[in-house]
């Protein structure tokens, strides 16, 4: 009896895990791959460098900035407080959705605690474009 109950719980856990992994994985996309790789409305992580001079805030608390990987640039809209370490010219990861012809709508913006740090995905994206200047 106990073994069958334990089996049922395991099956439940496996089903939840499987369904969870199908529904909540978020792909990382660089700005120049956005058009080919991202489906409209799909939740993705956009990573790159914040384009210098692109940061604007309007009176409603909406922030907009552009993310670039040296190839393409994508405009991002974000309603919220940017992390303390967000800076123009530095690495950033924005999580949200995108549709062709519109700005990327971010629900979360990640910049790191440490000013010396660069998100690994951003390094990867820049390396692919040949824009990476840091250590191998």
């Amino acid at each position, binding site marked *: *009896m*106990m073994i069958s109950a*334990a089996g049922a*719980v*395991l099956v*439940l*856990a496996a089903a*939840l*895990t499987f*369904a*969870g*992994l199908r*529904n*909540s*994985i*978020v*792909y*990382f996309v660089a700005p120049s791959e956005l058009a080919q790789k991202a489906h409209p409305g799909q939740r993705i*992580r956009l990573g790159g460098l914040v384009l210098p001079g692109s940061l*604007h*805030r*309007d*009176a*409603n*608390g909406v922030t907009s900035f552009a993310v670039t990987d040296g190839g393409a640039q994508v405009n991002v809209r974000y*309603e*919220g*407080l*940017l*992390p*303390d*370490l967000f*800076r123009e010219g530095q690495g950033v*990861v924005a*999580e949200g959705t995108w549709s062709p012809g519109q700005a990327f709508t971010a629900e979360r913006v*990640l910049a*790191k*605690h*440490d*000013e*010396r*740090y660069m*998100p*690994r*995905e951003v390094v*990867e994206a820049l390396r692919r474009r040949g824009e990476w200047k840091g250590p191998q």
Partner: protein
Amino acid sequence: MISEIGAFALCLTFAMSLAQGALGFATSQHASRAAALTALAQCVAVACLIAFVSLVAAYVRSDFSVAVVANNSHTDKPLIYKIAAAWGNHEGSMLLWCFVSSVFGAVLASARGGQSAGLWSKAVGVQGLVTAGALAYTLFLSNPFARLDPAPMQGAGLNPLLQDPALAAHPPMLYLGYVGMSVPFSLALAALIEGRADQAWAKALRPWTLAAWTCLTVGIALGSYWAYYELGWGGWWFWDPVENASFMPWLAACALVHSAIVTERRGSLASWTILLAIMGFGFALLGTFLVRSGVLTSVHAFAVDPRRGIAVLILLGLALGAGFGLYGWRAPKLSRAAGFGAVSRESMLVWNNFGLAVAAGVVLIGTLYPLIVEAVGGGLISVGPPFFNMTVAPLLGLLFVLLPVGPMLTWRIGDMRSVLVRLAPAAALGAGTLIATLALTHWRVAPAIGVAIGVWLIAGGFTYLWTRARRGEGRTLAKIVALPLAVWSMSIAHIGAGVLVIGAISETAFRAERAVALAPGQGVDFADRRITLLTMADVDGPNYEATRAILRIDHEGETVQLNTERRFYSTSPMPTTEVGILTGLDGDLYVALGEPIRNGGGAWGLRLYHNPMVQFIFGGALMMAIGGVLSLVALARRRKASP
């Protein structure tokens, strides 16, 4: 000079800990050899203490010829944070790891208790090898005493976000917990080598497991609390890989705390307890690997060196290889103990362990899945909080539904019907909460179930106290106070779990959040409150300059003032946010100052949060930790009474 003493002491510690390992395995039954082993383990701890004190001294004296001091300290820093900076970075934290491990080895060697000589000496030996492994890593890949030539005039400073009392205490507590899991690991390996895991062995295991679990609880809660009030994101848990890295050993330690009780009291589950002890330490090492290697993108940032990640992975492989290898070889030889019925306290504790182990496995899968996908060429992905919320929450929910039943059942064969009758009022209270929450929240089913489970846990905890007190003669209320400490400690921890569940569910499901732009004199309505920006002020702190927003909060006829700041530290190019928190009966009002709005007529960005019941989260965690400490006191008293 001091750092040369430290470096020398560190080398000496390494050599002596290797000797501790060798002597632990070689010791015969001679009393003189055992005394030598104890003395050696104590010498290892003293030598490591000298190394650790040397490093702290280098920080206190701001000796910038030492590389880690130059990189992480600054003469302007308050003394307490100069000291805390000693373990606030990679090299120093590894030295702390070694120091804690050596001290635990010495305590293990000094307090033999009722263990057999062979088992005891082998446990001390394995602990010596664990210390030696950590020391090898520290000495060869992250030497904290490396010099800089020429020495800089001023240090690079510590990240100002990290200058905080909760964060000064957070790493040492976590490390006490992580390294604390190494002692059950050593005891488990010793038991496998000796081919014996009896009740005396489990008795030796329990205090270590409890202490490690308590330290992990406090460490995780402190980190969560710090993230809540310091980062300005309004959240307390993000399912970040580094958070998961501490949550997995916590789940394993929690399971081990419970299975060790069964092994000590009834002699059963010995083999599973050993396996859990091995896995718990594996999770602790995996946590160190995930944090230190930088293989996963995390909100936590640490300097990344791939060689270090590989070295930790090798140590992890050695520990788990030795552990699982010995387990596969020797565990079948362990004697089987008395069985138990499907309805008994043992069976409920098995369910507890099953649930916690499956939850740890699910967290492990979610944390490592991005690495696996990337390794097979599936691209870069991340697994977000929804995955963990939808998998871990139902599993722990099931576990919590069973929790109040467990302590009410008797050992071996329990009577489920009478237990359910006694728990009926608690269940009714839970059901009432469910209906009330459903009605109040317009049928939000999942959070309502969560809150109801929390109430069921709390009511169940009190029911247990009540039932225990009703035994025998006399007035029940008077007897509740006089109940054994072991009963109280367990009930406090379980009630704390209920409090935490209520807080976590309420905060996650019913949080309100809004970004606004306000100029001085303007106001906004938020969460039944009127929030007005009175004025902006410039403030000078000890080593920073700040812009402060002074807000007026009007709520139910009362007026309070609340401040939030943006601080610019002279040592850091990045401003930091100092949030303002107003704790009320219905939760926290939480405000974080943003940046000035360009062309906004003097308006500033502000982020407002209302976090219902968020203090229940930290209060519940505190109750669980208090339960752990009281339980340790109860174990110590019992040991004194019957050595």
